[in-house]
């Protein structure tokens, strides 16, 4: 059973490599191309099944570089679920390349999985960079200029992260997260530790597209294909949040070195994300800022530096990963601004329902997945006495919900434009995409109904990181 634990990673990575090779060498026939998304979606679903079945086995691999614990199980399951649904629901006629479009999300998924089971700083960094690189490739397919911007900004973020991680390694004398945590218990919060932590958090904030650090990620997501946008907004941000949770768990013995800075970042992201979503005109931009606002809630959970807070963040991260990755994929082409969605409720009811739930969940509206996650974080914030941050978060969520109402109005109240006036085609209707949209709705709704066992698993995940 212990060896089966790495089978999902192997399956995901091997599928990505095969897809890239086969695509490059032209091995895929036109008939096979039609069924390829369904096959890849099924493979990811199988990987998810294996993860849920075999992932409960605890273990350590590659001399502690990868660790299988409840945290890894939760994060990997969430990201595999997000990828499975995204492959099913996306309108493949709006994508630039079938094989790369299938392979890059798999690479990003693999990156998150590596980061989730990372036992040391190297695996943590490698996982994040892998996910980010996949995002750059997806953006470059359509907009090389934006991809270049993403590379430059990502490079800056990566440099800050590397410098910070290197200093942390030097301070703690170890790259192992568990050992670092043990060492820091006997250490004191010093400026020498606060500075690298500042760099690390800043780098992660840029990677996660936290407002106001969305220097390139959000503009890049606006120019990318639907799946590319989902990858940048969902999977890369999830990778950054996973790294942040693991690092913060290691740093909890000295919370003063990061909590104030993280508090400011979380507050800015929650309020800024909501305000920017309200101001945004394009539905894709609105979705992106909603995601930025919700990832601010994930950061807010980390401020508490208690198990309940980190568990809340992890629980919310699961909801975020699914909604932010699949949201742009459900939306499809939306190049013509908000009017591109006019009458979508009548034309594509399943997709419209999916997009509605994705946006409402990212805004934290009840009774959807995001609401339950944000509520768990809010309870942790109350327990730890962070009432100002809690109030700002609630304010940001209220702004976000108001922003979503604008998009819902266009989708459900406005009539579809005449064919002659239509600037953007509605997403192509296929059996797989309709099934994917329905599955997405079920997942977003069921996340709340089944929140007790899911939050229980997240709590075990936080415990696995050494928190009491």
């Amino acid at each position: 059973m212990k060896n089966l634990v790495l089978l999902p990673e192997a399956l995901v990575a091997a599928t990505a490599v095969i897809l890239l090779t086969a695509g490059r060498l032209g091995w895929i026939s036109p008939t096979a191309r039609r069924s390829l998304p369904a096959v890849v979606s099924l493979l990811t679903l199988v990987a998810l099944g294996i993860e849920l079945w075999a992932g409960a086995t605890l273990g350590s691999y590659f001399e502690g570089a990868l660790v299988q614990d409840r945290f890894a199980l939760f994060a990997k399951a969430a990201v595999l679920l997000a990828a499975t649904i995204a492959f099913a629901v996306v309108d493949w006629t709006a994508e630039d390349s079938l094989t790369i479009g299938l392979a890059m999300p798999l690479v990003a998924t693999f990156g998150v999985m590596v980061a989730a089971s990372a036992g040391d700083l190297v695996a943590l960094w490698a996982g994040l960079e892998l996910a980010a690189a996949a995002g750059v490739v997806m953006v470059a397919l359509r907009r090389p200029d934006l991809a270049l911007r993403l590379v430059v900004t990502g490079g800056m973020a990566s440099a800050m992260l590397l410098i910070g991680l290197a200093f942390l390694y030097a301070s703690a004398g170890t790259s192992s997260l568990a050992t670092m945590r043990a060492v820091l218990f006997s250490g004191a919060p010093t400026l020498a530790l606060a500075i690298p932590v500042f760099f690390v958090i800043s780098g992660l904030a840029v990677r996660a597209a936290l407002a106001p650090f969305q220097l390139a990620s959000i503009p890049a997501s606006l120019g990318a294909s639907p799946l590319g946008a989902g990858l940048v907004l969902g999977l890369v941000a999830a990778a950054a949040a996973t790294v942040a949770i693991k690092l913060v768990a290691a740093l909890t013995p000295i919370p003063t070195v990061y909590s104030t800075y993280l508090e400011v970042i979380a507050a800015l992201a929650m309020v800024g994300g909501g305000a920017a979503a309200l101001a945004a005109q394009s539905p894709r931009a609105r979705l992106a800022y909603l995601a930025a606002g919700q990832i601010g809630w994930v950061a807010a959970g980390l401020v508490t530096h208690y198990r309940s807070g980190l568990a809340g963040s992890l629980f919310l991260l699961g909801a975020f990963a699914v909604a932010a990755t699949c949201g742009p994929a459900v939306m499809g082409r939306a190049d013509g601004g908000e009017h591109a969605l006019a009458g979508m409720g009548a034309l594509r009811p399943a997709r419209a329902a999916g997009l509605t739930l994705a946006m409402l969940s990212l805004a934290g509206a009840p009774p959807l997945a995001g609401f339950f996650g944000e509520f768990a974080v809010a309870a942790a914030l109350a327990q730890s006495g962070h009432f100002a941050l809690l109030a700002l978060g609630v304010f940001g969520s209220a702004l976000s919900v108001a922003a979503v109402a604008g998009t819902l109005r266009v989708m459900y109240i406005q009539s579809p434009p005449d064919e002659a006036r239509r600037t953007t085609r509605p997403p192509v209707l296929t059996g797989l995409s309709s099934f994917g949209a329905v599955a997405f709705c079920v997942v977003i709704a069921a996340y709340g109904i089944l929140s007790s066992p899911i939050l229980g698993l997240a709590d075990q995940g936080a415990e696995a990181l050494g928190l009491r």
Partner: protein
Amino acid sequence: MIWQSVSQAVFAASPSPTPTVPGAGIFSSSLLLSLTVWVPVAVAIAIAAMPNPRGRYDTLMKQIAFFTNLGMMFVLGIAYNQFQSFLPTVQYEEKVPWLQAVGATYHLGVDGPGMTMLILSGLIGIVSVLASLGVRERVRSYFCLLLLTQATVNGAIVARDMFVLILFWAAAAIPLAMLVIGWGGPRRYPAAWRLLGYWGLGTGALVVGTMTLYAASGGGSFDMDVLLKASISPRVQLAVGLFMLVAAATRLPLFPLHGWARDVYSEAPVGVTVIVAGSASRLGAYLLLRTLVAAEPSAAHLLSPLLAALAAVTVGYGALVALRALDLRQAAAYLALIPGGVTALALAALQPLSIAGAVLSLFAGGLAAALIVGVCATLSERAQSRSLQVLAGLAPRMPIVTWLMVIAGLAVLGVPFLATFDSELMTFFGSFKTQPIGAFAVAAGLAVAAVALASLWRRVLFSSPNPDAPGVSDASLGETWYLGLLAGGLLWVGLFPGGPKLPGTDSPLFDQGLVNVMAAGISDIASPYVLPTPGSGQ
């Protein structure tokens, strides 16, 4: 005389079994309250998924929505009938662990005030569907959203866990805003944004207040049985009370957080106006009753003068602006603020009698507010104008609407034989003891409201007809039914607050009486405010 019998019915309740009511015990379900919440949601999803090519099944969808509400009212009738009037505990309880890690449970239950609110919501549900029969555009979306709104209101009423309460409280805003945007009048966008803004502020205050209470009580549970009975310091109580007051004031609404009411009541479609004025907005007072009056006695004592002042300003402001209004629906919107103000005064008085008056006022005020906004909306639709400079002398041509408008105005004022009379009587008898200035100011506001209503009736109904006005027609059968149900509810409870009795006996005929039902739990809520009797040793 009537108030004596009402107060006797409320306070002479002894711990003896409920008098046997014909039909009691024939039906029981442990999921009764869940049905009231989730059946509308399930039906809304079913309607959303129904194929409806070119609106072929629009009528069927309206029928489904109507019979769903009728069925729910039947279930609620059974619940009402089997309710143990003299049991102070929560009834029809359901409790399932939900977010165990943070201490949230799916806990539902009702006591007397909850049952009263639930009956109000059931009645308003039927009325709102009847009032919406004229909807022709996007029928599917309209009735889906209406049913979802109703589910959220029911959910907030039956919630016994603050997490569940927040969930349903917050969820109500989105379907309502969509209904206003999609089917409202010319100023529907500002109306919807204002609704979202004010209700968002209220939700934020509710969340922060709840979290403060959660943290102060040890952070173990969101269950009302734990959270609202925890002993916390007066300072924290005051902070929580202020947050709850803001949340309630945005919903009830109370001045100065009433900004959404004028636009929503005057721009929303009739069915939506009825549901907002009738049941959704009553949740504000219900929240104050649950979280401030029943749970934070120190904060309630400190905040009661403020609440009484807000009540007085709300009633006075509503009456004055209605007097000056030039738009019929806007005048009705301001008049609909008055029952909420009276309820707030009753809560501010912190007397057992006034608290009973507040609970009855939730029901009666809801019906009165729904009736006044509904009848004015129907009149303006039937007369093809809402301008008070155009509408004149309509009584001969609209006899049904005239009768109903007169009843609506009298209900707002609280005249005898209407349910609002009983509630206002209890409110004023209770509040003149502890909040004399507030009570006097509210009474003065009601006097101004009487002038405003008299002016409105004279101008719109009984003056000489305007020859330049567009053609008018009286209320249709559906409109008569929906308005008649509201007026009937007010008359029924006004005439038989303790239920009709078999001639010559004390046995209930078929209704055990609203004041008997609502009494269950009021003594528990009012217990911190009962003055010790001489010789009780306290």
